[in-house]
Structure formats: structure tokens, C-alpha cells
């Protein structure tokens, strides 16, 4: 974003803003696309905003490898620790409210007040999900009263590497609403942000990188949803895919591809109100239930 503040003293020339080079976020680092490609991102009126990296299938492969590498440590961290880190993300976002508000204004073409409300809702959404880390097990798991001398306990565990196609319209609140529930339970994510509104997501990676979130837990690939969705849906080392950002036709193709290794699939809803109470609907699809039996006797 370039803002040219008004000159304050005398007739000094207006200051030229410093533009940001938006980059991908893979394995905790900020690379350019290996393909060397970028695409133009414009605001709602068609004005040029920035270039975003146009990720390739190789970038997607690298992102999956980074997500897999991060999975052991992240899923093995205590739920308390994950909650602390997600809450830290919210703290960092709070300090960048103005930046994200400006990015949402540019991306979604809404008035500043409305954008600010969406950013605030997104930060609160992070806080909401942060709190789930050490509670979901008591809501989704529990002791099973089996008819025999066995101790029997079911606990939810993270599915693994999740590809997330973020919603196309809601560039920040929608993005947060699909990303946070995936990672809070211990999954790692390969995130494809809104194709035409990727900048808030790319800026979010800067926040993630400074919030003690281990590198590789979230990987962000800007680019064409269909170009990236296809290799991700077919990738044998991806365990689940959230198709929220895919249109009906693409979603069907990707779901067919996902069947090859029986990925868990979250289908896109016909219309989603991102301001509504999210409930547990985005937490549970990316959890497996593990049940442990142990004999009881002396």
C-alpha cells in the first residue's frame, strides 16, 4: 500500500511511498515463486495495487513438503502451547489493524468503517479459535462405557496436512475463518488465498512469522485457485482439503482427485456468512478420533 502523506513543512515535495514486494510464505521463509512468475493485483476499481507471486505446482509441492515436516512438532506440541501461539497471533494482528483495514478496503472495495469491523471480527475469530486448542478434546472425545473390563477412551487427533482453498470474496475474515480451525488442533496447512484478493493473506504470513508459529505450519501460495488446487487435491501426502474457495465445478473435480488417497473433504457451502458464530463445524472435519482400549485387572 502506498500512502502519500501531505507535505507538512513548507513546500517540500510530497514523499514517495515505499512499495512492498509481496512474497510467498513456505516453511517459515518468504521466497518468490520458483517459476519466477507474478500476476497483477488490482483494487475493486481496477487500479494496480501490487504484484503477487503466481505460484506453480512446484511451489505447491514445496509447500506440502514444508507442511509435512512441520506436522510432527506442531501436532506434538501441547494444546496449551498451541493456544498460546494462536493467541499471540491475535495480539500481533491487533497492532496491525490499520494496515489490514487498508488492505481490506483495497481488496473488497468497502468503506473503511465496514472494513475495520471485518478486521476486528477476524482478530476476535483468532482469539475464539485459540481458545479451542485445549477444549476440543473434552467436547469431541471422552470415556466410553464399554461392556467389559476395559478402559476405553476416545480422543481427537489432527488429520495431518490440510490444503485450504480460502474463500474468494472475504479476503481476510473469511481467510482467518478457514485457516485458524485447521491449525489450532495441530494440523498444518497449505493455504491458497483468494485469487484476486491475495494481499491480506500475504500480509498475514508476516504476522504468523513473528508470532512463534513454527515455520511450515502455515504455507501461503498466491496464484490461480484452479492451477494450485489440482496438484494439491491429487497430492498423496495431503490428508485433507477444504474446498471453500472453489466454485462448484472445480470443487467436484478436486473432490474426485481427492478420492485417490481418501482425503477428508470439506465441500464449499452455497453461501457462507463469515460474520456468524462459526461453531465447531470447521474444527471437526480435520480431526480423527483415536480410541484406546486397555484391560483392567490386577
Amino acid at each position, binding site marked *: 500500500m502506498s500512502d502519500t502523506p501531505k507535505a507538512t513543512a513548507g513546500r517540500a515535495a510530497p514523499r514517495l511511498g515505499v512499495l512492498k514486494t509481496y512474497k510467498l510464505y513456505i516453511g517459515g521463509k518468504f521466497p518468490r515463486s520458483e517459476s519466477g512468475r507474478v500476476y497483477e493485483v488490482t483494487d475493486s476499481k481496477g487500479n494496480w495495487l501490487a504484484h503477487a507471486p503466481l505460484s506453480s505446482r512446484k511451489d505447491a509441492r514445496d509447500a506440502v513438503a514444508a507442511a509435512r515436516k512441520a506436522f510432527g512438532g506442531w501436532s506434538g506440541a501441547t*494444546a496449551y502451547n498451541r493456544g498460546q501461539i494462536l493467541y499471540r497471533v491475535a495480539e500481533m494482528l491487533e497492532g496491525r489493524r490499520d494496515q489490514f483495514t487498508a488492505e481490506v478496503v483495497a481488496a473488497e472495495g468497502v468503506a473503511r468503517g465496514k472494513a475495520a469491523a471485518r478486521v476486528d471480527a477476524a482478530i476476535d475469530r483468532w482469539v475464539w479459535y485459540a481458545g479451542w486448542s485445549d*477444549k476440543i478434546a473434552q*467436547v469431541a472425545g471422552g470415556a466410553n462405557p464399554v461392556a467389559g473390563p476395559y478402559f476405553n477412551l476416545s480422543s481427537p487427533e489432527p488429520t495431518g496436512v490440510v490444503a485450504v482453498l480460502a474463500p474468494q470474496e472475504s479476503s481476510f475474515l473469511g481467510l482467518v475463518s478457514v485457516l485458524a480451525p485447521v491449525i489450532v488442533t495441530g494440523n498444518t496447512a497449505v493455504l491458497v488465498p483468494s485469487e484476486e484478493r491475495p494481499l491480506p493473506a500475504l500480509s498475514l504470513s508476516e504476522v504468523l512469522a513473528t508470532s512463534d508459529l513454527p515455520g511450515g505450519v502455515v504455507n501461503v501460495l498466491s496464484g490461480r485457485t484452479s492451477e494450485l488446487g489440482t496438484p494439491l487435491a491429487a497430492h498423496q501426502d495431503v490428508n485433507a482439503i477444504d474446498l471453500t474457495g472453489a466454485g462448484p465445478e472445480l470443487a467436484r473435480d478436486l473432490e474426485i482427485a481427492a478420492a485417490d488417497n481418501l482425503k477428508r473433504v470439506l465441500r464449499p457451502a452455497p453461501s457462507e456468512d463469515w460474520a456468524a458464530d462459526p461453531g465447531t463445524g470447521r474444527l471437526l472435519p480435520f480431526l480423527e478420533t483415536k480410541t484406546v482400549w486397555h484391560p483392567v485387572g490386577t
Partner: protein
Amino acid sequence: MTRETPQVTGGTGAAAGTGPAKAFAYAPAPESRAIVDIAPSYGLFVDGEFRDASDGKVFKTVSPASEEVLSEVAQASAEDVDTAVRAARAAHAEWAALPGAERAKYLFRIARIVQERARELAVLETLDNGKPIRETRDADLPLIAAHFFYYAGWADKLPHAGFGPDPRPLGVAAQVIPWNFPLLMLAWKIAPALATGNTVVLKPAETTPLSALFFADICRQAGLPRGVVNIVTGAGPTGAALVAHPDVDKVAFTGSTAVGKEIARTVAGTRKRLTLELGGKGANIVFDDAPIDQAVEGIVNGIYFNGGQVCCAGSRLLVQESVQDELLDALKRRLATLRIGDPLDKNTDVGAINSAEQLARITELTRAGEAEGAERWSPACELPSTGYWFAPTVFTNVTQAHRIAREEIFGPVLSVLTFRTPDEAVAKANNTPYGLSAGVWTEKGSRILKMAQQLRAGVIWSNTFNKFDPTSPFGGYQESGFGREGGRHGLEAYLDV
């Protein structure tokens, strides 16, 4: 078989049994007191501000390790209690009407400020309570922050907690807490109460009021609306006035079983909901296939953590006869390494007894133990000349008939009993009116689970002891009280369900 000794560089070659040139004596390593600034006097915290007692009465709080007066604290009268309850009532509607997400953010702020001020609060708690800085720094404070963090996250998720689609708060909670974990018990009470939309009036223990008053300052720093948290300091009469107040909807008490029964009678016939965390006489059961070295650590942690002034202490060691000698030898050897003394020294393992009154009770019960024929043993240790101290003590040859096997001592005193079979262990462990905690030590998983199934206690620790976590419900059976604190279950005590 003996081996020759390697020659030491320039040395004469010590043989087994000869010690080093000098003993490895740890130099004093005191934690600085400078981090905490204790005012000469404190008022009550009512409706968001500190104020004197209506009749101007005060009492002193001393450091049990040195008997030094730390500060003067206001003694709340019945009138002050009424003012505090009114403040909590006035604040309630707005607090309960806040969206859960907003209440959550206040609690997250409190959690973060506790984390930021952890070292200061640890030193304060050590000064006021007498427990070692090692415990306040490594156990109490991390748990306190975690507790607020955990319940912060529940505030906006109550419809998912299994208590119906829109569970409502009770209203004003009267909370009375003990002196053994002053700030941790405050966290256990206040965090779930606030998360669920209640407002509180809390009375800390007479001998340890300071950390609750510092917590009042944390509420101020977090911008908590006035009247949501009120702290009234005082002794028994203040607590009695609080639980008897007609306008409280909820009473939560942690303390002795005798007082708990008194409170239960007080609230009888009223609308007040009650939860009680009371005394215990926890059995720590060691089988012959136990991991011995870790069992010894568990026994030590079970009865000497916080000087045994813990409701869930493993105060009865039930050891299988076949390993009795081996285990007791190892235990005594280990107790000889315990370091007793200045609680602010970072190397101190066992601190002071919290008050002269408590010391007298421990002394009286241990005399009874000797008089009734149990065998008393303590490691050689020098106790400080000022303050309230009691050496770690082990009684062997204890039977179920001894007072020290039945009554809660609440001090660093272990009673050792033996058993022959698992059934006998269960029978002895359960042979008590209490039922708070139990420990089981064996390498056989199925036996652990069978014992856990048969023991009548709210918390069973297997191959560990005295472990706590905000996600894990804690509370007793029988005369150890009712209701649970911690975890999803801990919400129920503060919801109208």
C-alpha cells in the same frame, strides 16, 4: 569384588568410601525481594477501588519464615461484605450481558498480565505463604496463568460445553479460599466464575491476603469493569458473613472439612449453589513391581510438596510388604537430600509452615503418633531459629487405628502402612471418610486401571503424583467435598444448569 582405583591427577587415589577433598556445598542463592513492592497497608478492593474497613479495623500479615510483618490489611466487617456483595450485584447484569468473546478478552488480558508479573508474584507468594520460590516460580505461577488462559477460551464457547444451547450464569459468587495456594486457589475460583458471566466477592485466607490484593491491581490493569471482582480480606467471621449473605447466588469454598460442613449447614434451605473442596487423606500405593526410583520421587512430591500443606497430599504411604524395606531405605536416603530453610533461596526444597497455629496442629498430631506407638524418623536437618518450621517426618509401623492414619495432618508428615494384596490395598485406601486423591505405582497397566476403578477418590495419579492442569477436573468424593474445578466440568459450578 573390589577394583583398583584410577589414580587422580596429582592425587593419591581415593578409594571407595573416602569422600572428595571438599563437600559440594551450595552457596546461598536468594531470589531478590526487590522485584516486589509491598505497601505498608492495604484496603479492601470493592467496586474497583481500595477502601478501608467500615470500622477501620486492620490485621497484620507476617512472613512465616521469619515472622517479619509484611503489611497491615483491612479486616472486612459484615457491613463491608454487604457493600462488596452489592457492588458485585450491581456489576452483574452488564457483565453477564457482554458477549462471551468480550469477557474472554478480559480474561486473556489477566492471563497475560499474570505471565508478565509472574516473578514478582512468585516472590510475593513465597514471602506471604512461606513456600519455596522453586514452587511458586515453577508450579504455582505457571498454573495460575494457564488457568486464566484456559477459562478465557471457554467464555465464548459455553453453548458447546454440553450444558445446553445457552447456559446462564448464577449471579454473584461468594468465594472463600485457603492459605496453602493463595493465588492458585483464587485462579481456580475466579477464572471459571468470570468466564461464565458471574461476578465475585472473594475472601482470601487470613494469613495470606497479599497476592489476592495484587490480583486486584491486575484486574485494574486489565481494565476489568468495576465490581466484577471484589476482594474482602479478613478472618473466619468475614468468611461467615460472606457465605451467609442473602444476596449471593453461589458459594464456593476450599478449606477444611469442618468449615465445609458449617457452610453446608449455612446455605441449607437457600437458593445458593454450593461447591466444596475440602480435606483429604490421600493413599499413595506402591506395589512391588513399581519403578522404585520414580516412586520415591512421587512419595516425596506427594507429601513434602508445599510442606504437605496440600489437601490432596499423599499422606498415607501404602507399601506392599515385599518391598517395604527397600522402599523405606531409598526414601530415607532421598529425604536426607531435602534442603529446608529460607524459602527465597532458589535451592530450598521445603519451606516454612504457614502459621503458628498450623505448626501447633502438626506438632500435636505427631505427638499422638508417637504416643500411640508409631515409629518416628526425620532426616538430620537444621531448622531456622525464627519462623514456623517442622522437619520432614516419616512414621512407620502405622496402622489404620492410629490418629495419624485417619486425621488430616496438613504438614510434612508421612504415615507408612503396609499391605499384601491389591484387594487389601484398596480396602485400606478406601477406609477413610475422605476421598480426594490416591496414587498407584506399578509397571502393570491393567493393575493401574483396576486400582483406579476401585479407589474412591476424585483424582487418581498413576506412576505420578500431585499433577495439576487447568483442563483436568479436580475434586473429591465423600467428605472431601463436591463439585469439580478445572476442565469442562469446572464450568458447571458456575452455570444455572
